[in-house]
């Protein structure tokens, strides 16, 4: 679980940069619903996450990721 906590701690500030509405970030926070990100914002954000962790999150995977918790899990899996 520490790995997951660390990933969350790295992801959260990256989300904050695009968090114009000041939504509280938890595992349950959704990108389209709560954060109201459009596809362009999602693309920029995904690129930042990929560069931060040196991973690739394919568009196929992105389609399955709706909230922060799912993103953290995906990063943990890809890093593993």
């Amino acid at each position, binding site marked *: 679980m520490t790995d997951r906590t660390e990933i969350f701690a790295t992801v959260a500030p990256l989300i904050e940069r695009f968090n114009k509405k000041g939504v509280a970030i938890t595992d349950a926070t959704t990108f389209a619903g709560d954060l109201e990100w459009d596809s362009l914002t999602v693309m920029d954000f995904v*690129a930042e996450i*990929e*560069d931060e962790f040196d991973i690739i999150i394919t568009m196929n995977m992105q389609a399955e990721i709706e909230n922060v918790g799912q993103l953290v899990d995906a990063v943990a899996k890809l890093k593993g």
Partner: protein
Amino acid sequence: MSKFDGLIAERQALIDTGVTDPFAIVMEKVKSPTEAVIAGKDTILLGTYNYMGMTFDPDVIQAGKDALDQFGSGTNGSRMLNGTFRDHMEVEQALRDFYGTTGAIVFSTGYMANLGMISTLAGKGEYVILDADSHASIYDGCKQGYAEIVRFRHNDINDLDKRLGRLPKEAGKLVVLEGVYSMLGDIAPLKEMVAIAKKHGAMVLSDEAHSMGFFGPNGRGVYEAQGCEGDVDFIVGTFSKSVGTVGGFCVSNHPKFEAIRLACRPYIFTASLPPSVVATAAASIRKLQFAHNKRQHLWENARTLHGGLKAMGFELGTENPDSAIIAVILKDQEQAVMMWQALLDSGLYVNMARPPATPAGTFLLRCSLCAEHTPEQIQKVLGMFKAAGQAVGVIA
């Protein structure tokens, strides 16, 4: 159907402002590649992809009429079964001659050429790597197939390199690029990008829809102009732009290229192009191969329009006249629509483009030039832009 309510409301709000619906234009008469009648008014066309002005070429029209007389109005079947006629073979030969390749496969539209090639080339466990600003047909080709899809930042060589470097070495990879990106009219640094793709062992497909006929010594496209013919594995193109009819194609030197015909669903499970269409396409391609004067004139038009608009103070999609597309960037939808309407009222048709078709949420008036635009027409167009721009307050 309630999921469309947002779209319906947005369209209604636009029409309620009193403007002509930009997405419901009807050409009542078409007088030439550069002139039509819209709502009873003579209008200069500056928003078609008729780059080389082949649509009214007498030889092209005659080829179509002859084919209609000799082969009838349609094929009633797939290329794979009863839908391959003499002129489907002839147009594929014309393409091989034009591009200097060993293989050519014709599809029913350019959209289907991308859909078919991308979904068939990259299979399960393989990767398609595409530019973020790719055309919808490229995105849809990715969705249609079973490969993993990876996107890189538009025209960013380092970003492509970085992403390719993170993929499994042994997995099959297809990098999809476009010679000219049609929204802003900017061109890709193909030479560098193709070299990066090859370094990582990827195959390369370049969509040259908006460059055919006027880039490179033989008019093959941006890839030819930048000297990377030897390293681009597949070229996708269309008959609906410079060729002046409808249809799509892929050309390649790959020794196993013909296998695509046996496996590609958008090639197999649709009717082939009508005989008149492939006959006009073949005649047009044969003429495009040697259309040096037209090429030169098209570039002169692009330079004049780009320079003129820039001097007036319009913000343009490219710093220089890189292609035959010149995009005028407006600040929002309201300004774009007002400007578009003012131009239409003065007798000029341009394309209005908005997100999600455009990059970075921009609103554009997109001008595409034709080799048949006369210098007088271009001067008239510049005058219309000046008047409309000042009336709407886009320029001083």
